[in-house]
Structures are given as structure tokens and as C-alpha cells.
């Protein structure tokens, strides 16, 4: 049997509210689920207003795990030039991905406010994960616009518009932008066939959203509807390519 290599595309081992999860708890959950590696992102407050401290906390966590945990960083575009500075610092401290959470950070993804940060991420070769929802300021259609405007920045569309904007994904997927990938945390596992029919199957990235969802449970249900053995691209390879660990 082929060795199953699974990477969790988004987790939030945070310190408060609904994302309390220690690094030990996360590694334990990964062991139970059979997940080799995981992207770790700052928690909500850190993404919104505490970028520097959050990025340092996440980088410290990642550095203790020999590459098993992959650091993502936050930079709120409202901090202007300073947000680009924190992105560069985070990059230097090992961050591999930038996270934007428009609803949390208080901007629309189509606002020009975010353009300098998007360009900087592109120059640093860092993929940008964009949370969809709440959808007035971060819907799949808006992320499509962002991706068109920043063709040289690679973007991961988080959650695929779950729940009621998942219908928008058909047109987003059909647009097939070369710089756009689709992450699956919070997507209903039984809805995978809808996304698949719309044609995004080679661009999916699996994520658990832990601790907001249970990693093992998510993986078990996804395996049922989108088998791990049939889709190594979804469960590991796309992300490795985005991170530059695999060519292509």
C-alpha cells in the first residue's frame, strides 16, 4: 500500500476563544488523524490587530517541530507600510504563507488598500490564503477579482464560499485562473462532488480548520467523499508545490 502523505492546509493553534489549542494538542491530533504536516496560522486577534506578536508566536511554534508545522503569518493592510514590513519580517523568521481575513481585518478584498501587500507577497513568492466569509467583504467572486488583479501572486481561496456562496464556485472554478487554488476547510464533505463537477479537482487543498473542526473527523468524512488514496494532489501535492517544496 502506498504511503499516505497528508498535509493539513489550515489550522489555528491559538490562545483564546474558539481556537484554543496548544502545539502539543495539535501534534497529538495530527498523530491520531495520520496527518504528517500542517499549516499553522495566527488566531483571530493576532490577524486583526496583533500581527507582529502573533507572527512571532506562530514562528516559534513552527521552529520547534522540524518542519512538521508550516508557519503562516498575518498582516493587516490597514497598517499600511508597516504591514509590508511585518510580512518581510515574518518571511525572514520562516513564515511561508500570508493569511488575509477581510471580515476580521476590516477591509474588502477588492479594496485597493490591499494591493501593496498583495504585490509584496508576490515578490516574496509567498502564497496568500484568503478567508471567504463573511461574504459581504470576502466572497469567492471578490477573490476572483483579486486574483485577476494580482496575476503574479498565488492565492488560496479559503473555504470555497461555504456555506451559501458555494454556488458561486462554479463560475470561479470555470474561470480557471492559473494563480488560484481552493482550500476545503468548512466545506461540507458531501458537497465535494458539486465542486468536482464544476471542474476544480486539480486545484483543491484539504484543510481541517482545527480546532474549529475536529481534524480526525473531517479527514474521515472527506476520505469517504473524496478518497485520500485517489487524490494525493488535494491532500498534499498542491500545497507542496505552492510552498516550492516540489517542482511544477
Amino acid at each position, binding site marked *: 500500500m502506498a504511503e499516505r502523505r497528508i498535509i493539513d492546509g489550515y489550522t489555528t493553534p491559538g490562545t483564546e476563544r474558539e481556537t484554543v489549542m496548544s502545539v502539543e494538542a495539535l501534534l497529538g491530533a495530527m498523530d491520531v488523524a495520520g496527518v504528517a504536516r500542517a499549516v499553522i496560522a495566527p488566531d483571530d486577534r493576532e490577524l486583526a490587530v496583533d500581527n507582529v506578536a502573533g507572527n512571532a508566536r506562530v514562528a516559534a511554534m513552527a521552529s520547534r517541530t522540524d518542519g512538521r508545522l508550516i508557519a503562516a503569518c498575518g498582516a493587516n493592510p490597514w497598517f499600511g507600510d508597516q504591514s509590508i514590513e511585518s510580512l518581510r519580517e515574518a518571511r525572514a523568521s520562516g513564515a511561508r504563507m500570508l493569511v488575509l481575513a477581510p471580515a476580521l481585518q476590516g477591509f474588502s478584498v477588492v479594496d485597493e488598500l490591499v494591493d501593496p501587500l498583495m504585490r509584496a507577497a508576490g515578490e516574496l513568492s509567498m502564497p496568500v490564503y484568503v478567508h471567504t466569509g*463573511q461574504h459581504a467583504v470576502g466572497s469567492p467572486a471578490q477573490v476572483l477579482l483579486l486574483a485577476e488583479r494580482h496575476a503574479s501572486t498565488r492565492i488560496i481561496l479559503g473555504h470555497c464560499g461555504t456555506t*451559501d456562496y458555494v454556488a458561486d464556485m462554479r463560475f470561479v472554478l470555470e474561470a480557471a485562473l492559473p494563480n488560484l487554488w481552493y482550500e476545503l476547510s*468548512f466545506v461540507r464533505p*458531501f458537497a465535494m462532488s458539486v465542486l468536482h463537477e464544476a471542474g476544480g479537482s486539480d486545484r483543491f487543498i484539504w484543510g481541517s*480548520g482545527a480546532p474549529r*473542526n*475536529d481534524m480526525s*473527523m473531517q479527514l474521515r468524512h472527506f476520505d469517504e467523499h473524496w478518497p485520500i488514496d485517489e487524490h494525493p494532489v488535494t491532500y498534499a501535492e498542491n500545497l507542496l508545490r505552492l510552498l516550492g517544496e516540489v517542482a511544477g
Partner: protein
Amino acid sequence: MIFDCHTHWGMCFVERDGRDPSAWLAVMDRYNVTHAIVLPHAGLEHAGHIADDHDDLAAVCAASDGRMIPFVTANPLDGDGGLAEIDRWLGDGEARGVKFHPWLQGMSVCTPFMDEVCERVAAHGAPILFHDGTPPYSLPAQIGMLARRHPRTTIVLGHTGLFEYWREAIAVMNARDNLWACLCGPQLEGVRQVLARCDRTRLLWGSDFGFTLFDALGYQLDLFRQAADDPTCQRILEDNPRRLLRWDA
């Protein structure tokens, strides 16, 4: 007994199974779900289909040995006609409640018609279940305003704010005693927070099964059970729905 309080007799089932509930019930059986509140679908998508949808729904529920409990809807643009449709089904108890899906039905809940509906449904002793969790017409706080204006009407948030608005659902649940919420949408931590912070005697569970052919039950039930201990499961999967539906009356 286990009650799934948010299911549909979906258009896909009408097309495939006509008025035969056996395949639909077989999915319920897989998870030992004994009863379900069954909401319309075609009538939510197209007001012109409401009457036919209700006839299908009544027939399929009548063939279910009492396991499928129909809720009906009404055309929000039809004024007295809409109220008459509600009377027609609730009057003799053939349906046990009313459902609205404001964004599918293209209606604000802040209308004189909805005021009338709330009073009429309360007079029948039945609840109203709303789709909630999406702008612009279905935010928990918007539906909470109806609950505020109609304190004797039992109003159910059909999704407890869904994936994005469960915090708003918690806030409004804690402000309105006549508001209930069906855990059908929030992610695991959202469900946990709702259980921890809301009155558990007004919570229900649902899967949204039947809107599509997908088996949503296994996932949604796993998610709920992961968040709820045994006494809470008993309360939310059986005791509360029985009270909501006046099952023993």
C-alpha cells in the same frame, strides 16, 4: 427517538421518487433517526409551486407512518391568499409548522405580512422555522426582531446562524425567550459555543438532508455528537423537539 428538525422533501426527491418516502427514510434508518421535520423545497424556490409542493409533501409524509412531520410555507406576496394557505394546512393539524426561506423567497421578514403570519401561526399553536445565517434577509438578529414583536410566537432559527453568524445567533437567542435554534450549520466550535452559552431547552438539531440527494446525516450527526454529552443529546435530539411539536398533546 431521534428527531432531525431540518430536512426537506427536495425537488430532487420529487423527481426521483415521486411520493414514495422509502429511499428517503432508508437514509434516516442508517443513523437511527426516527422522526424528521420535513420542509418544502419547490415552493420555496417558486411561489407558483407552493400548492403542488404542499400536496406532494402531505402525501409523502402520510406514507411515512408518522415519521415525517410536514411544515408548509406561504407566498409572501399573496397576502390573504398566503394566510389562507397556512390556515388550510395548520387548521386540521395536517402540517405542524411553517417554514420561510427569506433569501430564496425574495422577502424581507420586516413586513406587515410577516407580522400577520406570526400572529396567525401562533393562534394555531405552531412554530415558524426560518432559514437563517445569510444576508440580506436572513440574519439571526433580523429574525429576532420578529420574535421581539411577537412574543407569543415560537420562532426557530433553522441554522443557528450557519457557519458565519452563530455568534449573532447566540446573542439573539439570549435576548428573546420565544426564539429557538436548530443546530444545522455551525462548525464544531460554533456548536460548542452555542451549547455553552444558550438555553439548552430551546435547541434542536438538524441535517438539512433532502435539499440534495447527498447523505448529510452522517456528517452532521457526528459533528453534533462530538460537541454534546449524552444528556444534552437526549434533550436536543428528542425532548426539545417533542416539546416544540407538542408531540404528546
